[in-house]
């Protein structure tokens, strides 16, 4: 049991190292990658079965001293927040491999394996230095994938995402080091463990500055309005599987960070930033949606859509009540599914027509009914159709927002309008309408593609029809966290 999280984190990397050492051939490489992803998925399910939602704090904790002198430890653990993201990652990875099953560029597969380790590691680390390492680890494969395998101005865009995120990371690293030093000052020994650092207390001014370092990193990753100009170029240049990771999982790590480290370390101090985040989130929700209307490039359009929904999630988190938090966590999962679905289908569109531009498309429903159906389905999921998981998250966040006040409630409810601004017009010009030159020879979904997409679609329906199956997994812990937050007056604040 104690090793479970370590297996989940390092299996993909281990596979990558072994296969790299033996310089295996492509068929073995992809089989190995798939095997590792399936193993991780199975282990995650096993872990979920043994996860106790009622227990307080972290579970499956693994804590070993690592760099003794500086109190850096190998410290993994899981709670409801990280479990949700872990499950989404573990669920999507095998499907991504299925998507790229015939994609013969080996470097790509290695990068994906490393990426999974980076992402899950970041979600499960409880030592800040360890977290920082994983946080950077997951950026590198993305950088390489955009730069080497991407489209368009990929080099420039790869540099842009790298520089902007590294800027945020540096600020965060500074805050982390300062926290560790303060712990040393107070206790005479170094430590970077989250639970240790959370006991520190500062004067408000220092606390606000320290929180800023973290928030900058997360604001860029989410991205909040104003920190977002890397997003659309990166999404449009990145190859499909890395777009899926970017939107479905990495963007979620931004809000996860806000949640785990923002509230975990700084507790009430964050209320200093809450008004700003609320304004940026609400503005972003609409800004991105309006921006998406005139986008001709589908990847960019759904990049903005992603930004809009992540703004809503961020809003839900800073509202700090049970409904909004449950909604945000639920939406983290279901948005991951919906955006994975839509970006995979955009990838399939590109394979078929060599274009992701709306002006080239049209009439897909006539030539490829299954493709048209699923594409419209995922698009409607993005628009928050009831009966799909996305609606549940949005509903909960709206309800949570009305608990905070009427004005915030109305602002959150605009999410009902945001996505529809672009989704329906987009469907009109891609799935419906007359067939164009590019879509005349459009092939319908193959069995392999159906196998990739159907699980995502089914899970979206299940999460929409029976959310009560999933909410008990996280509701008690969210409640505890809210109680702790309410009681904290000191903490690292």
């Amino acid at each position, binding site marked *: 049991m104690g090793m479970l999280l370590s297996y989940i984190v390092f299996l993909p990397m281990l596979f990558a190292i072994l296969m790299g050492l033996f310089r295996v051939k492509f068929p073995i490489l992809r089989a190995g990658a798939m095997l590792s992803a399936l193993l991780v998925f199975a282990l995650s399910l096993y872990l979920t079965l043994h996860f106790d939602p009622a227990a307080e704090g972290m579970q499956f904790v693994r804590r070993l001293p690592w760099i003794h002198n500086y109190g850096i430890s190998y410290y993994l653990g899981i709670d409801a927040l990280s479990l949700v993201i872990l499950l989404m990652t573990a669920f999507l990875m095998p499907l991504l491999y299925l998507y790229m099953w015939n994609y013969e560029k080996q470097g790509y597969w290695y990068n994906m394996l490393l990426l999974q380790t980076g992402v899950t590691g970041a979600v499960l680390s409880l030592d800040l230095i360890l977290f920082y390492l994983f946080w950077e680890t997951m950026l590198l494969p993305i950088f390489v994938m955009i730069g080497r395998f991407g489209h368009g101005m990929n080099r420039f865009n790869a540099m842009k995402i790298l520089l*902007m995120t590294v800027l945020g990371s540096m600020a965060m690293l500074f805050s982390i080091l300062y926290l560790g030093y303060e712990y040393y000052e107070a206790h005479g020994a170094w430590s970077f463990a989250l639970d240790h650092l959370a006991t520190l207390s500062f004067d408000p001014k220092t606390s606000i500055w320290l929180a800023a370092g973290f928030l900058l990193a997360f604001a860029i990753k989410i991205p909040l309005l*104003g920190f*977002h*100009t890397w997003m*659309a170029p990166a999404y449009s240049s990145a190859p499909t599987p890395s777009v899926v990771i970017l939107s479905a999982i990495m963007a979620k790590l931004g809000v996860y960070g806000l949640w785990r480290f923002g509230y975990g370390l700084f507790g009430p101090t964050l209320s200093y930033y809450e008004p700003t985040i609320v304004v940026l989130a609400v503005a972003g929700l609409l*800004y991105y949606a*309006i*921006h*998406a*209307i*005139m*986008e001709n490039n589908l990847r960019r359009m759904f990049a903005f859509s992603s930004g809009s929904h992540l703004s809503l999630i961020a809003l839900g988190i800073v509202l700090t009540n*049970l*409904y909004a938090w*449950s909604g945000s966590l639920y939406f983290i999962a279901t948005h991951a599914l919906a955006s994975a679905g839509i970006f995979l289908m955009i990838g399939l569109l590109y394979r078929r027509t060599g274009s992701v531009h709306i002006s080239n498309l049209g*009439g897909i*429903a*006539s030539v490829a*009914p*299954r493709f048209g*159906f699923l594409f419209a389905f995922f698009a*409607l999921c993005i628009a928050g*159709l*009831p*009966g799909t998981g996305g*609606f549940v998250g949005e*509903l*909960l966040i*709206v*309800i949570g*927002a*009305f*608990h905070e006040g*009427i004005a915030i*409630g*109305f602002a*959150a*409810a*605009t999410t*009902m*309008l945001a996505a*529809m*601004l672009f989704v*329906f*017009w987009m*469907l*009109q*010009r891609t*799935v*419906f*309408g*007359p067939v164009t030159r590019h879509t005349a020879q459009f092939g319908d979904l193959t069995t392999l593609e159906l196998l990739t997409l159907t699980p995502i679609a089914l899970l979206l329906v299940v999460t929409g*029809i*029976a*959310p*009560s199956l999933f*909410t*008990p997994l996280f*509701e008690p812990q969210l*409640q505890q966290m809210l109680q702790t937050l309410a009681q904290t007056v000191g903490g690292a604040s």
Partner: protein
Amino acid sequence: MTLQTTQLLGWILLLPFTGALVLGLLHLTFPRTRRLDTFYAALGVAGPVVAAALGLKVLYAVASGADVTFRQTLFTWLSVGDLKIGLTLSADALGAVMLFIVTFVGSVIHIYAVGYMRGEKSFGKFFAYFNFFLGSMLLLVLADNPIVMFIGWELVGLASYLLIGWYYEDPANVKAANKAFILNRIGDFGFISGLGLLFALVGEGGFSFADIAAHIGSVDPAMTALVGLLLFVGAMGKSAQIPLYVWLPDAMAGPTPVSALIHAATMVTAGVYMVARFSFLYESVPDVGLFIASIGAASALLAALFACYQSDIKKILAYSTMSQLGYMFIAVGLGGYSAGIFHLFTHAFFKALLFMGAGAVIIALHHEQNIFKMGGLKEKMGLVTATMLVATLAISGIPPFAGFFSKDAILAHAFASGHTFIWAVGVATAYLTAYYMFRLFFVVFVAPPREKAEPAPLDRTVTWPLVVLAVGSAVAGFFGLPEAYGGQNWFAGFLHLPDRALHLGSGEEFLLDMLNLLVASAGIYVAYRLFARSPREAHDAAAWQTMLRHTLYVDEIYEALFVRPLRGLSRLLDRVVDNRIIDGIIGLTVGGYRVASAGFALLQNGSVRWYALYFMAGLCGLSLYILQNIGGE
């Protein structure tokens, strides 16, 4: 009130959804085959018909027991904190009536669609959508709490979207579908905000309709009014009232059975149903009710005016639907919930019949929709003419047909409540209704034909449903026979909604009815004089007539006010805000870094003497710093 659990409701809901699932999967598996069409038709009709039989059973059980409510909890949908939302179905009197309307009229239209859609490609998909619509509509009317109702509410919107855009090869139809969904969503923004606010106010005590009714009394009336207004915004969208109505005429792009079922008989009445369902809330805020009634009256009149100038048979009926919905909102707004639901009930029969008759004419004439290209059809299409006449008389309010009783119930209520102006608008609309409906009837069936067109023979599945609904349109009014005519208004007694008690003497009511009858006859007479013998598509004499023919250019105004500015803003955000301002600021930082590095590079000039100077300067600075610190302590 007694509660009874039952398995029936679950089955009623499950039947159409299962049908939709099976049909949909079969269609996706064999998208192009035509061999399964007979099977599709049988399966597509079976679910609704069985559901209708079960629905009738429920209605009968509710009607024969004293104040019985049937209830069935399928499972807990969501449970977070106080928000415990069960997928609970319940049928009280109001629910049972709606259940009956939806399943009965729904089945009839499903049967009609078999003949109407025969030979269309994607026959299976059509019935999948149609069944899906029916299931969603049942979810809406049977929901025990407003959240599940909202889910049904949005799903019927989805079905409507898919079916309006049925002929999706033509972008105009898809545009119409988008318009419908988007305007409905704007309404739903109000609806969901209303629910969010309502939950914040009373959610701790549970969120089923009964729980809300029990706790609404303790809420600040201003807040209740706000909730009432927000919920009504949702109704404006769904039930096509000013200002969100512009989607309904365009929705006629869908096949005619769709217009009959979704855009006439059932879905568009959901807003009225919702207000009646929340009657416990609206009765405490009469000002909001007055607002609803005013919107209803304005919509009724405006739509009737528009209908007088249309020449597309389906658009006339679309505006007529909007106008009749306006009547229903007058009723529910002024606290006459039973009267509103009664009109909803009779309207379902005669409006579905009107659409289906129109559809029969349209396919018989090979998809001609302009009434001025039709004519003289009474010779060749006797059955259609007879049934259409019944429906036209019913909507015009001629006794003893259904519309007479229900419309007069509304107008009597409006008169008795003292809102004479709203009442007068209602009477004026009644005149216009009789006029434009008989204009349609005379031009299409009575006037001499324009072009020699031989109508194609009609399938029996198309004609028999007309007869069934004609019988309904003829007799449905007797369920609510008022006391003035020796009845007891059984319908209102059965619904027992919290109607605002108003007393109107039998004599007064009789006089009002006579006035309405006179007004309607006048409308028919004018239509007869103008259109029965030599119909002319009147040319516009005055500017206001041109305005009305173009429906006051509302579409163009909305386009200029909302659509274009949004698109312009979208471009602005991309080209200016993102590319210039934000990236500009980032660029400035990068640029600043470059300038600074260039500055530092100047210092690095390779001369050792300069380096020594830097060294000295650094050392001095450091010493100063240390000294200062010591001094400070």
